């Protein structure tokens, strides 16, 4: 079994993170696995973790009454799933489901927030990794929302 710190260090999200910080972060992590079709998290439940996907793909879904689940994003190996752990009230906004068998590293949000509060340089290092991803996803979501391929384009 690969030690968790090695998995964290090898994941693109944490590329370049100093070794001491990798150990701090890895101390909040655990390997997790989800079968195809299984929920990684559900809308409205506590956002108590975030995930680094190692294998498989995860779909983010909104449930539309009368229409069922609608997928608006899929994420795969090398990508991060979950940002609601960063902001209050720490509740998931959407469903996340494993499209196929998923293996990931899950990080305990309370543990990690505590370490970030105790060591703001760690918090800053994490924010420098999260913010570009969130901004890129926001820009992509806006382009999606514009429905550019529709009739009016």
């Amino acid at each position, binding site marked *: 079994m690969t030690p968790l710190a090695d998995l964290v260090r090898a994941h693109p999200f944490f590329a370049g993170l100093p070794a001491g910080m990798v150990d701090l972060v890895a101390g909040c992590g655990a390997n997790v696995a989800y079968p195809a079709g299984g929920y990684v998290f559900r809308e409205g439940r506590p956002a108590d973790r975030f995930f680094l996907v190692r294998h498989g*793909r995860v*779909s983010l*879904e909104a449930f539309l009454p009368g*229409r*069922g*689940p*609608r*997928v*608006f*994003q*899929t994420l795969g190996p*090398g990508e991060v799933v979950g940002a609601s752990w960063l902001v209050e009230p720490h509740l998931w906004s959407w469903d996340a489901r494993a*499209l196929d068998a998923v293996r990931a590293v899950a990080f305990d949000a309370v543990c990690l927030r505590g370490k970030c509060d105790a060591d703001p340089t760690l918090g800053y290092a994490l924010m420098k990794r999260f913010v570009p991803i969130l901004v*890129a*996803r926001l*820009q*992509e*979501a806006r*382009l*999606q929302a*514009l*429905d*550019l*391929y*529709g*009739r009016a*384009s």
Partner: protein
Amino acid sequence: MTAPPLPLTVREVVGETAEASTIVLDDERGGLAEPVPGQFNMLYPFAVGEAAISLSAFDAGRLTHTVRAVGPVSEALRRLEPGAQVGVRGPFGRGWPMRRARGRDVVLVAGGIGLAPLRPAIHAVLAEREAFGRVLILYGARSPADRLFIAELESWDARDDVDLAVTVDYADGGWRGRVGFVTALLPHIRFDPDHTIAMMCGPEAMMRAVASKLTARGVPASDVHLSMERNMKCAVGTCGHCQFGPLFVCKDGPVFTYAEIEQLLAVREI
């Protein structure tokens, strides 16, 4: 003066999506010049009007156009049946840089109906696959049902020498593929930015985003090519309908380098 429209016979009409159809025309007598990938023809459903439609494929005696119904002319084209006649002028415009692409990695990015003008370039690359480096095809559609050329997408996906990534903006539960905007595919592809030619076609907002990301990864703006769309009438640069700053899309394009038009794309008035 350009030549009058040449009446050609519709050989086949294939429904691609709820809004788009592919129309195959017979030109076995070779009445029109041989097109190059990226060029367009002016199609004239008689008694309705004329519209610029990119070639989505061509081979000896067959000219293929894929059209999405957005107005009376394109709607009339979609309603054509085999045996009907349509007037054709062309081919027009500057096409994709196929010669310049040889020996390089080729990144082809399409959004929506924009896969149609890129398809002849893909055919040309695959016909001489050994002449090119990595071949990466990225395609974004509105939904799974809005994908064009589904059987052909599957055949490209089955090849070991092509990297194909398809994504849709939205999907219901049954879709097993990627969901997200086409720009989300870019971080996952590998190419040599110093030896890459990029070709893209889709909505302008999409192309601006893709071109910006490609140049940020080191691809020179002169190696990033975009196929532009404007309302074209004469197709030879005299009427001014498709004027784009100092350029005419029909005559100087429709394919431009990002270096040529980056600043023009930022001017909202044009």
